C-alpha cells in the first residue's frame, strides 16, 4: 500500500506542477480571485451609501421624532435627512416635487406614490409611539412601565412559501452554477490529460512502472486539487466577509451552505472524474476527446437543468427528492435543494453516502476500462471492446 501511494502521489505531483505552471491556471485563478473580491467589495461600496429618506416638516423636526427614526434606521439600514418648510402647503409641495420622501404637517403624513417603501409606515409607527408614551406618562405611569408597554412586539411574521429564505435560495442556485462549471472544467481537464497521455503513448511507459489505478487516481488527484484550490479562492473572501460583516447582500445562513458546497464538489468530483477519465481513454487522437466525453457531459448538463428548472422552484416535490438522492444528479441537485432550508438532515447524509459509494464503485470500473483501452490504438475504442469475451482474457 505504501508503494501504491508513493507512485500515485508522484503522478499527482507531476500533474500539479504542470498545472500550476501553466498560463491558464494563473489566468483563471486570478480571474476567480477578482470575481470573488468584487462580489464582496461592490455591495460594500454600494451599501456604504445606504438608503436615505428625506422627511419634510414645518419648521425643525421634533427631537423625539428624530431620535426615534434614527433608532429605527440603524438596524434597517437607512438614514433620514430632514428638510424644513414654512407651512403645510410647502411641505406637500416638497413631497410632490420629490424633494422629500414624506412630509409631516399637523396631523397629516404626506407620501408620494413611488419610492417611499416602508418609510411612511415607520414614521407613522414613530408618531404613534411618541404620542402613546406622552399620554402614558401624563396618566402617571413610571418610565419603567412605559418602557415595558413600548417593548410589546407584534408576532413574528414568516412567509409560508416553498422556501425559508429567498436570499439563501439565490445562494443555492449560485452554488449549483459554480459546481456545474467546476465539474465540467475539471472533467475536461482530466479527459484532456488522459487523452494526451494515451495519444503520446506516455501511458504505455507509465503502465510498465505503475498500476492503472495509480495513474488514474494520481491524474484525478492533481486536477481535483487544482480545481478545489480555485473553488476555495472563489469562496473564501465571500465566506470571510459573511463572518465579519452582514452587508454583502447574502444571508448569514448561507456561510454553512458554502462549506457544504465544497463538500459536494469533492463528492461530485470523485464521482465524475473517473467517468471522464474512462471515457477519455477510449480516444485515439486527442481531438476526439470532446465527443468521447459527451455522454458524461450530457449527464452533468441534465442534472444541472433539473436542479434549476425542477428543484429550485419546488424543492420538496417528489421528483426533487428523488433526483437529489440519485447519485449521478445528487452533487448538483442537493446543494440547490438544501438551500430551501426544508431538507431533513438524514436525506442529506443519505445522498452523500450514496454518492460516495457510487464513486468508489466507479474507480474500479474506470480503472479496468482505462487499462484495456489504453493499449488499443489506431482507432477509436468502442465500449463493446471493453467487455471481456468468454473464453479469452
Amino acid at each position, binding site marked *: 500500500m505504501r508503494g501504491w501511494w508513493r507512485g500515485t502521489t508522484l503522478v499527482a505531483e507531476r500533474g500539479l506542477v504542470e498545472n500550476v505552471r501553466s498560463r491558464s491556471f494563473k489566468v483563471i485563478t486570478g480571474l476567480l480571485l477578482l470575481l470573488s473580491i468584487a462580489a464582496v467589495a461592490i455591495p460594500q461600496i454600494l451599501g456604504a451609501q445606504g438608503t436615505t429618506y428625506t422627511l419634510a416638516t414645518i419648521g425643525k423636526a421634533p427631537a423625539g421624532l428624530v431620535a426615534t427614526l434614527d433608532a429605527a434606521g440603524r438596524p434597517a439600514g437607512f438614514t433620514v435627512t430632514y428638510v424644513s418648510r414654512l407651512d403645510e402647503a410647502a411641505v406637500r409641495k416638497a413631497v410632490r416635487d420629490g424633494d422629500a420622501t414624506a412630509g409631516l404637517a399637523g396631523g397629516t403624513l404626506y407620501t408620494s406614490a413611488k419610492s417611499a417603501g416602508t418609510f411612511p409606515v415607520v414614521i407613522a409607527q414613530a408618531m404613534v409611539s411618541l404620542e402613546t408614551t406622552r399620554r402614558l406618562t401624563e396618566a402617571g405611569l413610571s418610565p419603567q412601565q412605559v418602557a415595558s408597554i413600548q417593548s410589546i412586539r407584534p408576532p413574528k411574521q414568516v412567509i409560508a412559501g416553498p422556501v425559508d429564505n429567498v436570499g439563501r435560495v439565490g445562494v443555492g442556485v449560485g452554488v449549483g452554477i459554480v459546481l456545474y462549471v467546476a465539474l465540467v472544467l475539471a472533467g475536461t481537464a482530466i479527459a484532456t490529460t488522459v487523452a494526451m497521455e494515451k495519444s503520446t503513448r506516455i501511458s504505455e511507459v507509465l503502465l510498465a512502472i505503475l498500476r492503472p489505478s495509480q495513474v488514474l487516481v494520481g491524474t484525478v488527484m492533481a486536477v481535483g486539487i487544482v480545481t478545489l484550490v480555485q473553488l476555495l479562492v472563489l469562496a473564501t473572501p465571500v465566506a470571510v466577509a459573511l463572518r465579519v460583516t452582514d452587508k454583502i447582500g447574502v444571508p448569514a445562513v448561507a456561510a454553512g451552505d458554502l462549506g457544504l458546497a465544497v463538500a459536494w464538489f469533492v463528492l461530485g468530483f470523485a464521482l465524475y472524474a473517473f467517468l471522464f477519465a474512462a471515457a477519455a481513454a477510449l480516444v485515439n487522437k486527442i481531438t476526439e476527446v470532446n465527443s468521447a466525453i459527451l455522454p458524461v457531459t450530457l449527464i452533468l448538463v441534465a442534472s444541472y437543468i433539473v436542479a434549476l428548472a425542477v428543484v429550485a422552484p419546488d424543492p420538496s416535490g417528489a421528483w426533487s427528492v428523488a433526483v437529489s438522492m440519485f447519485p449521478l444528479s445528487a452533487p448538483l441537485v442537493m446543494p440547490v435543494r438544501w438551500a430551501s432550508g426544508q431538507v431533513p438532515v438524514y436525506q442529506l447524509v443519505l445522498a452523500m453516502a450514496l454518492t460516495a459509494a457510487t464513486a468508489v464503485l466507479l474507480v474500479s470500473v474506470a480503472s479496468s476500462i482505462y487499462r484495456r483501452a489504453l493499449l488499443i490504438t489506431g482507432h477509436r475504442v468502442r465500449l463493446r471492446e471493453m467487455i471481456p469475451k468468454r473464453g*479469452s482474457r
Partner: protein
Amino acid sequence: MGLEIHDIAHSFGDRTALDGVSFDIAPGVITGLLGPNGAGKTTLLRIMLGVLSPDRGQVRYNGRPVGEQDRRQWGYMPQERGLYPGMPAGDQVTHFGRLHGLSRRDATSKAHALLAELGLEDRWNDCTDKLSGGMQQRLQLATSLVHDPSVIVLDEPFAGLDPLAVESLSETLRLRARGGRTVLFSSHQLDLVQDLCEDIAMVDHGRTVLLGSVATLRASSGRRQLRVHVKAPNREWLLGYPDVTVVSDEADDLRLALPPGIDPLDVLDAARAAGEVVDFGLDLPTLSQLFLSAADRTLDPAGVR
C-alpha cells in the same frame, strides 16, 4: 540465470499474436528480438513488462516468476515515444527516475549524468516539444535508463534513426551490456542491427524460428560463400570438393557456396596450390537471409495454419 521467456501465448480475440514463445536472455550480452512487422514482438515485450497479461506462459527472472517489484527496476522504452510534451527535459528524466523508486536527489543527479552522457546536458530546462526528433529519442532513452536498470527492454529503438544516431545508441547499449545488464531490443531491420546483437531470437507469426548466438548461427548456416580471386589457368583444383557449388565465375571473382562441414580454409589452400590468390573473403549470410530460410522452414504444409 537471467531472463526466461517460457511458453508465452497471447491472442487478441481470434487473432493469435504469440503462440508459445520460449527463449532465454542472458545478462551481459545484447539480445535482439527480431522479426518482420506483425510478428508479435511488441506484444511479447508488453507482456514481459506487465503491460499486458499473457493467456499462457510465464516470464521468469533469476529463476522465479517476475513480479511488480522486479519490473520497477527494469527500464522500458516503447516503440512510440512517450514523453510529456510540455515538461522540461531534466524534470522529465528526474520524474521517471522517481517513479522507478529513486529519491528526488538521486534522480536529479543521475538525470544530470545521463543527459551529459547522451549529449543533452545543455537542454535540461528546454521543453520536450522544443527538442528535435533525435534529441527526443535520446531523452526517451534517458527516461528508461535513469535508474540504472538491471534489465533494459527497448521496442524498435532504431526505427527512424540516422546512421550516426544508430551508432551512438548502439554504443550506449554496449556499455550497459558490458556492465552486466540484461539488454533486449526488438527490431524489424535485421541487417541494421546485425553487428550489434550477440544473441538473437527470431519470431514469425507468433513463433520463434531461430535462436542463438549470431556468430554461431551465421557460421553454421549452409549459406557461407567463399569469394576468391585466384590466378589459376582453370578450375580443376575445385574437383576435390564435389559439394562446393559455383555461384558465379567472373574473370577476377569466383564465388563458391560452402555447405556445412566444409572448412573454408581447406578450399582456400587448394586455390593457393593452383595459383596465386590475389584476394579472398568469406561472406556469411546476413540476418535477413537467415530469417528467410528459417521462416521458409516453418512454412512447410504441416506448419501452415
